[in-house]
């Protein structure tokens, strides 16, 4: 059974009764879909990503995974592993005391990919598939570059055998040259593994490359939503027009 996330008029806030940080989102994500969440800092992109992941429960509308609200999905359910997250900052999202190999092994083991030995073997394969050199696998994050750390973050997400990956600004902290390597890696996940991708970014250029559909978010509202080509060629909202003008594409 594949994984399907559906948001219906969904919204979230960070405290009961507080103003909604994101509102009125209607969205379906499945394996094979590629969706961009575009907007400026503070617009609610990451809040929406957390809502889709089940890290936040909706204060408005609903977010369901295979028809069940995230709040009713048991902690032991394999569905949690089927939706994985890649963090914005590869410098702070890894345990500084664990090697890359250990971090990915732990993820594989926790998500039921077999014994510790099998999980370690899988971790080695996944890290190699992301292009990480064998000696870097055995290093702690402190001695690795941003690109190498982001590869570990991606391998850690893959270790759960996900159907959907939510990537929160995965290249914004990286050089142009390293950005190209990580974007290619995300592209290969879509093409080779059929993984559904939700890409959070303030950069329409990056979103244009990897997604076919995007939501433009401004101040908590989805101001425009549609096929990426449509948004780029015929933006109707002022904020989308500004984003298109600012994009270096």
């Amino acid at each position, binding site marked *: 059974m594949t994984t399907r996330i559906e948001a219906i008029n969904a919204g979230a806030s960070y405290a009961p009764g507080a103003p909604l940080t994101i509102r009125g989102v209607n969205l379906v994500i499945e394996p094979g879909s590629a969706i961009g969440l575009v907007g400026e800092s503070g617009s609610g992109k990451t809040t929406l990503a957390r809502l889709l992941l089940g890290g936040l429960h909706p204060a408005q509308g609903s977010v369901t995974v295979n028809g069940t609200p995230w709040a009713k999905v048991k902690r032991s359910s394999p569905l949690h592993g089927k939706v994985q997250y890649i963090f914005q900052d590869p410098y702070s999202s890894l345990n500084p005391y664990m090697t890359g190999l250990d971090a990915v092994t732990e993820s594989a083991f926790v998500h039921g990919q077999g014994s510790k030995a099998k999980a370690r073997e899988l971790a080695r394969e996944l890290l190699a598939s992301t292009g990480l050199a064998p000696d870097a696998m055995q290093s702690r994050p402190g001695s690795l570059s941003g690109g190498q750390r982001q590869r570990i973050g991606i391998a850690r997400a893959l270790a759960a055998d996900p159907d959907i990956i939510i990537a929160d600004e995965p290249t914004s902290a990286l050089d*142009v*040259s390293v950005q190209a390597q990580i974007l290619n890696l995300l592209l290969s996940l879509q093409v080779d593994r059929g993984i559904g991708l939700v890409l959070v970014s303030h950069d329409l250029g*990056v979103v*244009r*490359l990897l997604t*076919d559909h995007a939501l433009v978010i401004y101040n908590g509202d989805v101001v425009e939503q549609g096929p*990426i080509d449509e948004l780029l060629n015929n933006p109707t909202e002022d904020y989308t027009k500004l984003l298109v003008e600012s994009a*270096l594409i």
Partner: protein
Amino acid sequence: MTMPDVASPSREPLLRVEHLAVRIGTVEVLTDVSFSVDKGSALAVVGETGSGKSISCRAVAGLLPRLGGRIVRGSVTFCGQDMAGATSREWSRIRGRKIGFIPQASIASLDPVMRIGAQLRETIKLLDPDADPVSRAKELLQDVRMHDVDRVVQSYPHQLSGGMRQRVMIALALAGHPDLLVADEPTTALDATVQRSILELLTKLRKEKGMSLLVVTHDLSLAESFAEEIVVMYSGVTVERGPTKVLLHKAAHPYTSALLAARVAAARRGQPLQVLPGSPLSPAWRPVGCNFQPRCTYAEPDCATEDPPSETVGVGHTSACFQSEAVLKANA
């Protein structure tokens, strides 16, 4: 993005850096850096992390001693004066007054427990003692197109957005009426729309005040939007310099060519981007011959034995590569 509408700069060089080599501790982090900034013009210094862009900026602003660094060869000439051997007292007469400096991660450079107005007034008293600090602080914030100036002077840094804090940093750098503004990655970590507004602001200020700009960035597409000339650095060496339009469309160095090909703007949807193989060198180890040769797709046996000299390949366009002609031909 189109090139900014800026009046033609005069050709008098304000800053000239020639064959600069810098050592930090026992490591030579810059080995051969050359560029110049004309009066009223904008130069972008581009390269990957670790290429020496920020160290070059620090050398130009006289800030190497704070990193434990020193100039071991070459020269830094500002307004006709050789600054390579300048004392810290001589630098303090230039830095802030003649050369404004916006450091990398400037958002974290503001004092978190001091109101913006107080930070501006403190700097104004130091760099522009004849001015009235209160009115000058507001004037500087207006210069950087800050809205609601009265609220901003009363605010602490955490009460401002990233773009507003960056505008405050620019205002601080302008306090001493500098002739040259050096900005180290001024838009990194900012949103695309804010990036654009900050670069437009720098271009407008340059036009209004007749300033020169030296801006470090790792993004060639961004450099295109504000600079007339680009310098590309790799592993502590200037590998290519030239007018922006020429360099972006007729790159002569394989490294520049690879950086251009790796841009998101150069890729088609659903198609892999061209990737620069390998990773940047550690300054503690450099190969014999050309530094870029281990990653270069044009490398020939000569490249691993000799340092390629910087040679002219066009008007105002130089490249330090034995294969420049082949690269130019491929990019024609």
